[in-house]
C-alpha cells in the first residue's frame, strides 16, 4: 500500500556496495587499492558490527525470556521451584475463577472490538470527506492518545467517583447515581470505554493514512452515479481500505490485550469482585503480589496463544469478508 515501498525494495541491478566493489560505471582501481585486503574484511563484517547491539539486546531480552517463560510455565512455584510439574499450572489456571473472569473479559473485548474500530473508521471517513472543521477535529481527537493510561485513569477516577461530578450532573436530570467503577456489571464496560476514549485517535490517524492512498477518482465516480454516503462507504471505501481496516482490527485488539494495565491498575485494581481482570493484570498479580512466577508464566503463555489465535482469525475472517464484498 505505501508509496515508497515498491521502488526501493525492487532496486535495479545490485551494485554490491557491501562487498566493497564500486559500481561498474566508475573506475574500480583507486577505491579498492586504498582500502586494501584488511579493509575488505572489515567491510564484510561491517553489517554485523552495525547490527550487533540490536541483535544482542533482542536475543537476550526478548527471545531468550520467551523461551525461558514457556519452559518456566511447566515448573512449580514455592517448594517445587525448578521441578517439572507438567501441566499443573495450566490446570490451576483453568480452575481459578479470577483467571476465568480474565478470559471472559477477553471474550467481551472481542465482542466490543468492531465498535472500537468502527468509531475511528467513521470519524476518519467524515474527516476525509471534509466535514466543516475537519482539520481541528483531527488534532483534537488525537490528543488523548499521547497521555499515559495512568493519567487518563486518574482523570476518570475523578470524573466517575460515586460522589463525583458525572453523578452530580446525572442527578441534576434525575438519573443515577451509578457506581461506575464499583458495580461488577458496569465496571468493565466503563474501563473499556475509557480505553477507547484514550486510543481512538491512534486508529483515526492510521485510517487517515490509509485514506491518503485512496484513489479519488473512484469516489468521484460514485458521486456521479448518485451513490449515497452509506453506499459509498460500503462499496468503495471499505473494499479499497481492506488492508488498513485489517491492520486497525489487529492493532486495536493487541492494544486492548496489552495496554490496559495502567487503566486497570489505577481505576479498579481488577475489582470489583474480579470483574475487571484481564490476563495481563492476572500475570502482574501472580508475579508481583502472590509470588507465583511459574503460574504467571503459564498465564503469559496462554495470553501469547490468545493473541496469536485472535490475530490469525481476524486476518482470515477479514480476507473472506473482503472477497465477498
Amino acid at each position, binding site marked *: 500500500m*505505501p508509496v*515508497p515501498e515498491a521502488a*526501493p525494495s525492487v532496486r535495479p541491478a545490485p551494485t554490491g*556496495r*557491501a562487498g566493497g566493489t564500486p559500481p561498474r560505471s*566508475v573506475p574500480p582501481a583507486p*577505491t579498492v587499492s*586504498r*582500502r586494501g585486503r584488511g579493509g575488505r574484511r572489515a*567491510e*564484510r563484517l*561491517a*553489517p*554485523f558490527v*552495525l*547490527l550487533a*547491539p*540490536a541483535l544482542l*539486546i533482542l536475543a*537476550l*531480552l*526478548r527471545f531468550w*525470556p*520467551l523461551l525461558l517463560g514457556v519452559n518456566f510455565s511447566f515448573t512449580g512455584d514455592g517448594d517445587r521451584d525448578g521441578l517439572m510439574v507438567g501441566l499443573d499450572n495450566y490446570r490451576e489456571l483453568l480452575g481459578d475463577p479470577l483467571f476465568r473472569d480474565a478470559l471472559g473479559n477477553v471474550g467481551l473485548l472481542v465482542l466490543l472490538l468492531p465498535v472500537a474500530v468502527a468509531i475511528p473508521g467513521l470519524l476518519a471517513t467524515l474527516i476525509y470527506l*471534509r466535514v*466543516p*472543521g475537519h482539520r*481541528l*477535529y483531527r488534532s*483534537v*481527537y488525537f*490528543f488523548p492518545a*499521547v*497521555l*499515559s*493510561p*495512568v*493519567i487518563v485513569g*486518574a*482523570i476518570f477516577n*475523578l*470524573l466517575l467517583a460515586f460522589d463525583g*461530578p458525572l453523578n452530580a*450532573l446525572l442527578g441534576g436530570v434525575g438519573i443515577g447515581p451509578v457506581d461506575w467503577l464499583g458495580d461488577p456489571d458496569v465496571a468493565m464496560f466503563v474501563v473499556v470505554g475509557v480505553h477507547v476514549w484514550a486510543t481512538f485517535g491512534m486508529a483515526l*490517524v492510521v485510517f*487517515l493514512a490509509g485514506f491518503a492512498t485512496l484513489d479519488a477518482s473512484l469516489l468521484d465516480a460514485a458521486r456521479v452515479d448518485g451513490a449515497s*454516503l452509506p453506499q459509498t462507504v460500503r462499496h468503495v471505501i471499505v473494499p479499497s481500505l481492506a488492508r488498513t481496516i485489517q*491492520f486497525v482490527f489487529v492493532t486495536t485488539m*493487541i492494544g486492548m490485550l*496489552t495496554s490496559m494495565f*495502567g487503566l486497570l*491498575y*489505577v481505576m479498579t485494581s481488577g475489582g470489583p469482585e474480579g470483574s475487571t481482570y484481564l490476563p495481563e493484570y492476572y500475570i*502482574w498479580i501472580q508475579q*508481583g503480589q502472590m509470588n507465583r*512466577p511459574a503460574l504467571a508464566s503459564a498465564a*503469559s*503463555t496462554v495470553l*501469547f496463544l490468545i*493473541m496469536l489465535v485472535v490475530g490469525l482469525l481476524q486476518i482470515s475472517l477479514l480476507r473472506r469478508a473482503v472477497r465477498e464484498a
Partner: protein
Amino acid sequence: MSRVRWGRWLLALPMAVLALATVYPLVFTANVAMKTRRDYVLDRFSLVDSLRWDNVAAAWNSVGMARYLTNSVVVVTVSVLLLLLFGSMAGFALSQLRFRGSSVLFLCCLAALFVPFQVIMVPLARIMSDAGLVDTYPGLVLAYVAQFLPFTIFLMTSYYRTIPPEIIDAARIDGNDVYGVYRRIMLPLGAPALLSVGILNALFCWNDVLISLLLMPSAEHRTLMVGVTSLRGQYSADIPTFAAGVLIAAVPVLVIYLFLQRQIADGVAAGATKG
C-alpha cells in the same frame, strides 16, 4: 448542492460534541486543580476566575514529584538516545547493505515486534534480578530499549530504503568506509525519521507504568507515572491537590504534543502504512 452542504453541517455537530468530550476531562481536571477544597465541594463545575497555584505547589512539594520527574527524564533521555543509535545502525545495515542472512535478521526483528511485554515479563524480571539490574537506571533503560527497539528498527529500515543508493555510492567513492557513510550520510539524512521515531519512543517510555513498576520497586527510583499512581492514596480526601498532581504529570506531554503534533501523527501513520 445546498442539500449536501446542510448534511455536512449536520454531521459536524456530533463531531463537535465528541471533540468537546475529548478535551473536557482535562480542562475539568485543570480547573479543579485551581480550586480550594471548599470551592470544589460547593461547585465542581464553575470555572475559576483566577489561577491559584497553591495546590500545584503542594502536590509538587509533598510527594517527591521533583525526584520522580528527574528519574523519568534521565531514564527516558538515555533510552531514546540508545534506541535511535542502535535502531539507525541496524536500519542502515538492513536496508542498504547486502550480506548473507539480511532478510532472516530483518524477519527476526519483525517477529520481536509481536512479543508483548506481558508475555516475557516474568522471566525478564528474573534475568534482570540475576544480573543485579533490578532497581537500577541501567536495568530500566535496557528494558525500554529492548521493548521499543523492534519498532524503531522497523521504521528506520523502511525509511532508509527510500534513500537512493547512488548517494551512498558517491560517498564511498569519496573514500568513506561503511562507518563513515553511516556517520556522514545516513545519520543526517535520517534526521526526519529519527525525530519522529524519537518522539514516539520518548512518549512510550514516558507513559509506561508496567515495566517501571516491575523493575523499579523502590520509592526513591520511581518514575513519574508510577509516582502519579501513588497520588490517589495520598490525596483521596483532597481532590484539588490530587488534580494538581495529575496536571503536573500531564503538562510535559501536552507541551510536546502542542509543538510536535505532526511528527507524532506521522510516526504512527508510517508504522501503519509501511507494513
